[in-house]
């Protein structure tokens, strides 16, 4: 069964009087538990497609079904709530909140869930243990390396136990060794925890880790 089912999606941006078609008639099906890499040159529409899957953007036309929900039918509020339960987002530049410790950053998505402070802390620590950073729970982002920051960001993405993980060039800002570690961690999440992962990457070595590679060019899926 496809956890991501995209059908005839178009995305058009308007800049001044110009109309820019970023995605043009995209059809994509991602089965549950799949690890998909989206590749393509800059401006090909990879990140836009990822944003549509994550529910942080809406298509101009077409249908985006993720985890059994047609996202185009949801209001802004309902979409926000849907995101908090179904999707974990991993950014290229980690985007941790600098004034919060690692564990507080991981706790953030849990603030939206009705649970006690102790339960929240316990779940955040569990997520940090999964990414191997339990001993750095009280460190601030500035006290962590890039690789460690990305691990914390991954812990934040998985703490609500979402069905789908979307990653926008998760290794793009890391050195080779850290990138390897992050990719290994994502493989583990996919294999052991059965997380469906959709990853945008420029890096062929990163893409090799995925089960399926899809290529985008000028808003069209070419392979």
């Amino acid at each position, binding site marked *: 069964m496809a956890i991501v089912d995209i059908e005839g999606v178009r995305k058009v941006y308007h800049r001044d009087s110009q109309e820019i078609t970023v995605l043009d008639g995209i059809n994509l099906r991602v089965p549950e538990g799949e690890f998909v890499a989206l590749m393509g040159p800059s401006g090909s529409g990879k990140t836009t497609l990822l*944003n549509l899957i*994550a529910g*942080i*953007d809406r298509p101009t036309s077409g249908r985006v079904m993720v985890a059994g929900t047609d996202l185009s039918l949801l209001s*802004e*509020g309902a979409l*926000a*709530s*849907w*995101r*908090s*339960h179904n999707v974990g*987002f991993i*950014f290229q530049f980690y*985007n941790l*909140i*600098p*004034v*919060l410790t690692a564990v*507080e950053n991981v706790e*953030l*998505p849990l*603030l*939206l869930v009705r649970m006690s*402070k102790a339960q929240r802390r316990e779940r955040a620590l569990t997520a940090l243990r999964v990414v191997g950073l339990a001993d750095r729970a009280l460190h601030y982002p500035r006290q962590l390396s890039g690789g460690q920051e990305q691990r914390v960001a991954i812990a*934040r993405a998985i703490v609500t136990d979402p069905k789908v993980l979307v990653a926008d060039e998760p290794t793009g800002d890391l050195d080779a060794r850290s990138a390897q570690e992050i990719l290994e961690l994502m493989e583990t999440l996919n294999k052991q925890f059965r997380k469906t992962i959709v990853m945008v990457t420029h890096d062929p070595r990163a893409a090799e880790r995925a089960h399926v590679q899809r290529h985008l060019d000028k808003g069209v899926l070419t392979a």
Partner: protein
Amino acid sequence: MRYLPYILKHLRRNWMRTGSTIVAMSICIFLFCTLQTLIRAVTFNLKSANANILVMRHAVSLVFNLPIAYKERIASVPGVTRVGIANWFGGSRRPGEFRDFFPNFAIDDAFLEMYPEYIIPPDQEQAYRQDRRGCIIARKLSVERGWNIGDTFQLESFIPPYRVGRPFEFVVRAIYDADEKRHPGTVDNLMFFHYEYLYEMTNQRAGIGTYRIQIADPAQAGAISKAVDALFENSDAQTHTETEAAFRAGFVSLAGNLAYLLNAIGLAVTFTILLVTANTMSMAVRERRTEIAVLKTLGFPSGLVMGLILTESAALGALGGALALGLSSLAIGNLTKLPFIGDAVRGFPDLGLHPLVALLGFGLAVALGVLAGLIPAFLAFRARITDLLRSA
């Protein structure tokens, strides 16, 4: 509550900017509280003005006295039930030194009967009436100066006709209390003594500063005022009679322009602080565009993000307000000890940071904080995640 640590951590993020904004806010609220306290002190005794009492003074100025002979003629006017006397004595223990000043009046017995708000035990009032040098002092004065029943002290007036080459000696015969609930606005730092004593000590040169005229029907105040003034229209000392409220308001109007000026200054400072705080919040939000995008991506509804920014802004105002209240309380409490300013405000009754002024000041601080955060919060509310991420 679960978001509070998150908000507080953000306030600490740029402590220099947060600190300077809090200090700026606190200065604004401090000014507001201090100015409002002064205005309140100036207008305080308007509250206790009696509707059935008229005040008659010399038509030219309070500086000039009226003849004693007027008393009987005023009393003969229909509608007048009682006529009392009150002369501003202007006495202090060291003449010309206002540090030691408190308001004191020479009165007659009819005056006391007209003002039941000065609550005096009957035995003490009796003792006062029987002693020509006797005086009545406020409880507050008794506590502040350590004067008790039977104690003597001397005062010397700075008003030329009352300067007789030696000080007046007084004996404390009664201490009055004020009931703020039954008679709000009763002045609680006065001293009264016998007009006869003043009359004798000045070799019968002291005239009457003001006549207090009690009337049966407050609705007739205008007509009676005209009637009594008409009695003396062709005399050397023409009179001006008005309600007690109008008489007191006349004093307040002397400070009216000052109050207007103080309010204008306060308003200008408040507006400036609003701009400063709004700028701080705008910068804080602009710096956090990515974080706002992250919060929204994680599933924080736009309304909640807006609420977090507004709460942070309100917290900034609340911290400034709290600091200001501490400063105001300290400053107002010590205002009378300052040179020059202290001399000017020492005679004001009830000079202190009133809870209502404090509440207003704190409310203003929080409101300023919320107002300052409104636009940045609304922009964060409306911003699309992809736009925020792209512009980061």
